[in-house]
């Protein structure tokens, strides 16, 4: 098992390096020059601009610049935000917690919806419940998150006036009230992401359960007189959920996309809204770093899923 985890970790490193190469190539291919403003400024002579370019190494070959950039990133020097005037790694660390909280809670919500609905639908295939669940799932993942978000704001904030639609990081309250206010403002973003995600997962859970429910050991469990409930919960669902673990990990990139949109709608101060605001403000170091963090998170979740998979399913060989 330890060897298996180590192997997975070693596989993750080249993909991280590959991602960094892709990101840097995109940046290097892109037109535009950080000293462009100086070029149009008549007060700055061209020699000064050239000297600056030479000082920051912009005239070096791409490979040299890449190695310099990746060593700086590896040493924790992620650059300096042009707009916020603080180090990029600090800026991202401040914002990462909120994003992970929203994504994590919405994942839990998605699983809480998808697993029961998918299991019930699979135990009664082609029944009325199954068909309604399938149709609702289609509607759920066809509703773009930006539209669900606006609908939720319209219904729950404007018409019913139940929930606040602007996320506040600094709530002036103490004790239970502080927690309550935090939960209240997190309900809508989590629901938007969680419902979307749950709708996509329902169909996977259903087909995973359908695959397992026909197997012989399930028949054996029934034959020895176990109740249907025990058969489903203890024998079928346990095994059916193994592929679902991988699917949750594979869906991670889509969830990050949804999280960016949700953070933007509800003005949550996470790294998704940081990405959008830095794009609008031309803050290149932050944009590169946030994109890289998103990619790292995807690789990390894939790694966790792989390890979980190996732990849950003893049939996987730990080569």
């Amino acid at each position, binding site marked *: 098992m330890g060897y298996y985890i180590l192997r997975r970790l070693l596989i993750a490193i080249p993909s991280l390096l590959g991602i960094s190469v892709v*990101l840097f190539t995109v940046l290097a291919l*892109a037109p535009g020059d950080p000293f462009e403003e100086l070029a149009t400024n008549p007060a700055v002579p061209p020699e000064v601009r050239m000297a600056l370019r030479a000082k920051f190494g912009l005239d070096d070959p791409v490979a040299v610049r890449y190695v310099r950039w990746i060593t700086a990133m590896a040493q924790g020097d992620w650059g300096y935000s042009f707009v916020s005037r603080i180090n990029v790694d600090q800026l991202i660390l401040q914002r990462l917690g909120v994003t992970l909280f929203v994504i994590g809670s919405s994942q839990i919500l998605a699983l809480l919806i998808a697993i029961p609905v998918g299991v019930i639908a699979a135990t009664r295939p082609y029944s009325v419940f199954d068909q309604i669940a399938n149709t609702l799932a289609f509607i759920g993942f066809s509703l773009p998150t*930006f539209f669900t978000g*606006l609908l939720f704001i*319209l219904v729950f904030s404007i018409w019913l006036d139940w929930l606040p639609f602007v996320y506040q990081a600094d709530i002036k309250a103490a004790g239970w009230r502080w927690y309550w206010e935090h939960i209240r403002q997190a309900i809508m973003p989590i629901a938007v992401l969680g419902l979307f995600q749950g709708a996509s997962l329902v169909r996977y859970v259903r087909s995973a359960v359908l695959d397992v429910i026909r197997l012989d050991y399930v028949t054996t469990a029934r034959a020895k007189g176990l109740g249907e409930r025990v058969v489903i919960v203890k024998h079928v669902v346990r095994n059916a959920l193994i592929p679902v673990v991988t699917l949750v990990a594979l869906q991670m990139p889509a969830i*990050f996309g949804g999280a960016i949109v949700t953070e933007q709608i509800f003005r949550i101060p996470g790294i998704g809204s940081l990405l959008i605001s830095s794009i609008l403000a031309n803050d290149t170091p932050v*944009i590169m770093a*946030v*994109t890289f963090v998103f990619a790292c998170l995807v690789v990390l979740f894939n790694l966790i899923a792989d390890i979980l998979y190996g732990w849950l399913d003893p049939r996987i060989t730990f080569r």
Partner: protein
Amino acid sequence: MQQRAPTFSPTREAWRRFRRHKLAVISAFILGLMVLAILIGPLIWRIPINQIDFAATLQGPSWKHPFGTDDLGQDLLARMLYGGRISLAVGLAAMFVAIFVGTIIGAIAGMSRGWVGSALMWLTDLFLSLPQLPRLLLVIYLFRDTLKGTFGPEGGTFILIVIVIGGLRWMPVARLVRAQFLSLREKEFVEAARALGASKVRQVVRHILPNALGPVIVAGTIDVAAAIIAESTLSFLGLGFPPDIPTWGRLLFDAKDNLDFAPHWALFPGAAIFLTVLTINFIGDGLRDALDPRRVL
């Protein structure tokens, strides 16, 4: 193939299977109506999309403006009909780009028996692990100004968005095509073609590709929906089309700050995106049933 009645061509058989998926047929009908409205609507509904009327700002639906007006008094029905053309065109064009690139890479990876295939698949997985939206945003951020300068704001943005969305969605298609190729290239009919001296290109184009096309068509259908969502998301974030091109996502972006007193402004374009994506997804599901010969219906 043998047990079918000989009078049924594959197309007719697929159509018979597709018709059994009720929701897919209804969806095809609704989507057809929407496409028709977008195509001929502007010829009938002749209010210009940029006609400003300050006497009628932020009005709800009425006979004069069936979908209401925005903050400048511009007619939303006219804007949505125009924007729908852009949204659907982006969706279709991006799908073709994705299918084209994905099929080529998948075919090369599926036919090669050496390191080329594994290298291409490693590249595919690499692109897959970069989340789609941050990737899109990064590329748009870096390239938008140059393309706008070269092709003008409208054409430049269209080309950029199509290439970016389509060019970054080829990976699932490539994996699909490769998987199909890996099993098809060992089948007897391909071996027969090989034995008859067919060149590699001929084997691929005449024998393997037509048999691999079913899942690709299904993936392509669903890609149209995904591309429409991607374009709307970009426009919704204010990073897609410029304000004078009212795509559905852009309309939502403009509407979101007026949600409390003009909900119709957001509801109509949002519903249009939702309905388009939903119907395309259902059609894709129907096509999956229709084009998968292993599925008994």
